[in-house]
């Protein structure tokens, strides 16, 4: 599903050269529910951005679902973000002027889907995250947990190969965190591939696989026998 070979990301600012990622080798299988852990500044967010095709690696190779990302043009990268990846952000990143339904439809607008199909699939995605009755509400009229669920519905809308979640519970209270994690587990049991960045080991416990990053390198990679059920 995802294959990284000697992936390196270097930031250069004048004289200062920071290696955010050093020769990362990683293989993520279909159906994995993986947590990326590490202290802040360890490079986990950089890895996430590269995986999400928002940022590009300096060296190394990245395959997603059979596509070699380094060879893609900007527009083809947009297609990958649109079709193969569902990105879930810590700060939700919903468009405030659109209601929940419209926010969920947005990736399908760029995918060129018909109004009818967009409408049906967005409804279905909202039902899946338990917000079937909130389609007309704007993000500002919702709680943090609800907003994150709208964002998850948006990520699911184009039926992507992989869900990437960058600290999805970072801005949520414990009750909402629990709801979101339960939702991820449901998706995992449906067979979705999910990668989630977190710095809380409590959260990581729910995942089937955990990798730990420190100073741009993978220092640990282990499996939880059975992800802790909520």
């Amino acid at each position, binding site marked *: 599903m995802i294959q990284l070979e000697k992936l390196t990301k270097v930031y250069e600012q004048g004289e200062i050269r920071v290696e955010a990622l050093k020769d990362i080798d990683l293989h993520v299988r279909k159906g994995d529910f993986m947590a990326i852990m590490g202290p802040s500044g360890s490079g986990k967010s950089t890895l996430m*951005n590269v995986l*999400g095709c*928002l*940022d590009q690696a300096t060296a190394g190779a990245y395959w997603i679902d059979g596509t070699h990302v380094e060879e893609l043009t*900007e*527009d083809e990268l*947009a*297609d990958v*973000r*649109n*079709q193969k990846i569902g*990105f879930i*952000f810590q700060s939700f*990143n*919903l*468009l405030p*002027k659109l209601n929940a339904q419209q926010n969920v439809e*947005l*990736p399908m*607008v*760029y*995918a060129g889907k018909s*109004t009818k199909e967009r409408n049906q699939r967005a409804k279905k995605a909202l039902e899946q995250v338990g917000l079937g009755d909130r389609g007309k509400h704007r993000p500002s009229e919702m709680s943090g947990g609800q907003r994150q669920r709208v964002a998850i519905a*948006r990520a699911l809308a*184009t039926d992507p190969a992989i869900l990437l979640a960058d600290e999805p519970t970072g801005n949520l209270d414990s009750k909402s965190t629990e709801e979101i994690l339960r939702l991820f587990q449901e998706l995992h049991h449906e067979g979705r591939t999910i990668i989630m960045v977190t710095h809380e080991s409590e959260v990581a416990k729910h995942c089937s696989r955990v990798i730990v990053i420190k100073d741009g390198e993978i220092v640990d990679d282990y499996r939880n026998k059975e992800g802790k059920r909520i």
Partner: protein
Amino acid sequence: MKELFRIALSAIWSNKMRSLLTMLGIIIGISSVVTIVSIGDGTKASMNDQLSNLSGNSFQVYMNYNLDSEVYEKAMITAEDIAALQTKFQKETLEIAPDSRISGDVVGNLEQPGATFRGSSSGTLKMSKATIIEGRDLLDEERANKKNVVVVGERLAKDLFPGMSAIGQTMFLQMDDTSTGFQIVGVYTQEDQRSESYGGFISIGTAQKILNQNAYGSLNIYPAEGQSTDVLSTRVVKFLESRHDAEGQNFYRVFSSEAALATVNDVLGKVTLLIAAIAGIALLVGGIGVMNIMLVSVTERIREIGIRKAIGAKRHHIMIQFLIESVLLTLTGGIIGAVLGMGLAAIACSAMKVPRVISTDAILYASAFSIAIGLFFGIYPASQAAKLSPIEALRHE
């Protein structure tokens, strides 16, 4: 595409005041251009109208007033010249007649000062676009015998004999200390009331008899259908010069309404263009205003652009979104400006008493031009937006 329109509309709508102020520049620019061009067209139409009514497609050959009096006397157009011209240009002209006018005060039941009577031949009335509304035109027999009969203009007839028919009445034309009686046989009206001279038509023979003329300072020539005024007038002048041994000496000049029209149109066109160009500067400033606001709009929405890109928007999606926004701004401004401009032009035209030329093209051109402005001034901000990298844009607070 429909979605992109909706996005752009909501962006404009959510910043109503700012959008309106941005549009104002375009509104002022377009409306001033439309107003000026409309007034220019109206003035042109009015001038053309007056000039073509002045003498139809006829032209005048007249003496160069700057000649020495001795030369002038020698070069004056004689009755023999006219007869020779009439023979030579019989086919090419409808009428060649000396321009004889008698002016003076007229007395009927009431007295009216300052009327002018033109010497006419059988075709003059028709060529002056005048129609008999009462009585008749002069008869050939009356012209041949130089009888004192007259057809008078509607206005003069009413002023001389208010509340009654002027036909059969006698009017007296007073010049210096002589007074000549004329019997009124007809009343005419002219197509264009404004150019109707205050007076009437008598026969050329009668006019010459009264003026005691045998040489003339100018000729009216009415070309036949399909004759070029330019060619004909040159040939007439050559012919006159040869009869007076004055080849190439510039004794005779030509005035044609056609040429005058061309000059007037040329000058008016240039003046209109110049003023419209100045108004165009307002449009340019308006366009820069649009660009400025679009740049602000892009900066304000960097995060939104980042989100859109993160979920799969391509460069052209973002580009088109912002271009639609700027074009909607300028197009709306342009249409409002065109309507406003036509309104202003209508007011100005009625104040200046020139006909209002309703240009349906104005809205069309204004719209097309506004779209062009929107595209031209929108393309830079839109490409700035489209170029943003998703990760940079998402980090923007």
